[in-house]
């Protein structure tokens, strides 16, 4: 009856952050898994090259393939040492069968010889450094960087933690703020960008202090405090709101491109710069009702999800729902065999019950929209979700487009707050897919390594 009986507490439109569960815990490192699965494709049909053969021995950090096409390609590295078992189409977290390499660990923890970018002959040349980062498998939007080098004139860093339960981004800043700051310096020098904007919650501005401190001098790093976190997909919105480029001329046409960068990428850039390590390890939060011990943990890229859940005290047979990402915009998984991919920040495992529709309380079933405007008030993109959903369900797709269905960030807040339990986010996505096909789904693309 939760939600049926009136309460006197103030109605909250935004979900609580639940950060207490994982925020203060020590950050552990997951032991080497028996096997990693490393996808070479990012979406169905991405081109790829394999640099190793089945049965070959690889060391951790060895380049095993290339994903995508030059100039926007990305090298792929083995994250553990061992033997390449097979190269085949295996389930990918984004819901298709991707050509992947599966590597069985030999337990030797051999690391390949790697030379730091700092000392190489590339150091002076920005373009060469970027190519080096590409070689290191760090997901950035190389399309922008390589094609329109000069037009990118500002970096935007979303340091807000949008997903409830997930804290990995803030923990990364807390534990490794200086490394992230150094990575930012490297990137800004490499693509000769003078300005950067860091968006962070007002309550956590202390976390980005190191980034700002380093910036004093040649480059201009601004911190913008916000009250409400922004989703990862909010690139155009952040650009609109926080662009320092636009404030120069009143008419609003930006004079350059802004490029958004991930904090985890910045950290990886620093690693590559200082010690030459490719991107093979990432910090994720694992949370949800199915794990006993939610926490932040360093995990090798490509680790299948089951050892991560077991590590956090989860019973694999009790997991009913598994989501890569957070509970608001994550990607649902249908099998535990999928690997962790580079852009994932969290893993949300929940015990789910397969609810028989008729057993559910009838107050919780979907009801007609009462136009309460909760979804409108909460939408970060200032859309009118209820009307767009009406258009999409009635197949008036052109109207839906006119009302801005493509501005939807797929953040899920509207559906979270809708008292009529209308699956608004699902309808928004349906509208996008019906109009332009699946390639335009932001919520999926943001997990792709090649997306920028």
């Amino acid at each position, binding site marked *: 009856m939760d939600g049926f009986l009136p309460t006197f507490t103030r109605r909250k439109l935004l979900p609580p952050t639940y950060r207490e569960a994982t925020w203060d815990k020590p950050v552990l490192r997951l032991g080497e898994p028996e096997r990693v699965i490393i996808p070479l494709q990012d979406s169905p049909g991405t081109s790829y090259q394999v640099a190793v053969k089945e049965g070959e021995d690889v060391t951790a950090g060895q380049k095993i393939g290339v994903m995508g096409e030059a100039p926007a390609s990305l090298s792929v590295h083995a994250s553990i040492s061992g033997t390449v078992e097979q190269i085949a189409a295996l389930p990918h977290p984004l819901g298709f069968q991707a050509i992947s390499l599966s590597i069985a660990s030999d337990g030797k923890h051999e690391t390949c010889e790697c030379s730091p970018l700092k000392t190489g002959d590339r150091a002076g040349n920005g373009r060469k450094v970027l190519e080096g980062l590409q070689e290191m498998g760090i997901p950035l939007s190389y399309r922008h960087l390589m094609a329109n080098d000069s037009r990118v004139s500002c970096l935007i860093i979303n340091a807000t933690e949008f997903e409830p339960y997930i804290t990995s981004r803030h923990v990364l800043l807390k534990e490794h703020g200086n490394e992230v700051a150094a990575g930012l310096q490297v990137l800004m020098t490499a693509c000769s960008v003078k300005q950067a904007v860091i968006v962070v919650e007002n309550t956590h501005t202390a976390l980005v202090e190191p980034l700002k401190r380093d910036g004093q001098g040649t480059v201009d790093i601004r911190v913008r405090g916000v009250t409400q976190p922004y989703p990862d997909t909010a690139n*155009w919105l952040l650009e609109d709101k926080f662009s320092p480029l636009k404030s120069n001329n009143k008419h*609003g046409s930006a004079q350059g491109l802004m490029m958004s960068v991930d904090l985890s990428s910045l950290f990886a850039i620093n690693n590559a710069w200082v010690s030459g390590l490719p991107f093979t390890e990432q910090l994720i939060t694992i949370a949800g009702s199915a794990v006993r011990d939610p926490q932040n943990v360093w995990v090798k890229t490509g680790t299948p999800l089951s050892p991560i859940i077991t590590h956090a005290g989860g019973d694999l047979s009790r997991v009913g729902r598994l989501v890569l990402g957070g509970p608001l915009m994550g990607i649902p998984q249908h099998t535990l065999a999928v690997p962790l991919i580079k852009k994932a920040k969290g893993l949300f495992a929940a015990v789910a019950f397969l609810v028989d529709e008729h057993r559910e309380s009838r107050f919780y079933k979907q009801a007609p929209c009462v136009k309460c405007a909760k979804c409108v008030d909460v939408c970060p993109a200032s859309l*009118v979700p209820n009307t767009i959903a009406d258009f999409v369900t009635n197949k008036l797709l052109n109207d839906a487009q006119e009302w801005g269905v493509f501005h939807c960030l797929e953040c899920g807040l509207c559906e979270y707050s809708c008292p009529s339990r209308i699956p608004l986010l699902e309808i928004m996505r349906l509208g996008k897919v019906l109009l332009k096909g699946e390639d335009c789904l932001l919520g999926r693309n943001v997990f792709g390594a090649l997306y920028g």
Partner: protein
Amino acid sequence: MENRLLVSSPPYIKNGETAHCLMFDVFIALIPVLAASIIFFGPRVLWNVFWGVSAAIGTEALIQIVFKVPAFKFRTFVYSLLTNDDIDVLDGSALVTGMLLALTLPPSSPFWMPMIGSFIAIAFGKQVFGGVGYNIFNPALIGRAFLLAAWPGKATAWTAPISWEAWAQSLSLNPSSWIVDGVSTATPLALLKLQNETTPLAELLFGTTAGSLGETSALAILIGGGYLLYKGTVTWHIPFSYIGTAFLLSLLLGQDPLFHVFAGGLLFGAFFMATDVVTSPVTKLGRIIFGSGAGVLTIVIRVFGGFPEGVCYSILLMNAVTPLIDRYTKQLPQSAARSSLTGESFTPKG
């Protein structure tokens, strides 16, 4: 055998709220208003409200049984009513409609007036449009407008608040004393219009004037409205723009602005009628336009029109243009000018 995982579209968390909460919040906010009118007009207020609410719920149940559930099992009437998925009479919207309607009638109205009003409100104000969420006009106001047109005399037979002796007497066991009729008198707005007589502000604020059951005590309405605002059931946009516009316009027209705000049904309309979620615009700018439009219409009707009171018609008129307001105030971010409208820029492949 690997266990099966549930796959569905995100989000996977939900605030545990249902549309019932909104309705019951309004119900709670109406309690101080109801209490004030019981204090001023005697216990028979409850009698009227009871009939209004029962008629509203009964009409809704009947219409839904007849038109939506052909296989309704009358033998287990209550059980079927409670468990059938197609009947949402318990969602509280009929309750609120009936209560709002009863509170807009004069204290002396006979018990069948709220009944008929509720019937019209639910049947012709709501169910003909397809039920909750689809109606264009505020059902309670439809009911009230109908009563005003059908029984103009009875619907405007205002009486003064009853005396304490009469209140005490009406509590006795003798049924004939339950219904106390106050001395008939005119509302402050009618006094102003017809006799150019103003009522002191303190009386308006406290509620010791003639008027509809719910609208006399500004204080009680402000308490209820404050609860709605605090709880987040309604946003400030509609009530504040409504009251603010009425205030400014009456100031411009050389009237006493405070009198116009506190007299008559303006506060009641601004907090309880205009904010009805279904019939008000969804965009923020739209809500402000809606409130201001209703404010302008109210003062225009009051000052220039033939009726002393204009709240009911002003809100109904603005209800009619709500879809239009929504259409023209849709918020589109600036970058609409950029290629994002077509979705092209979101394709990931380089």
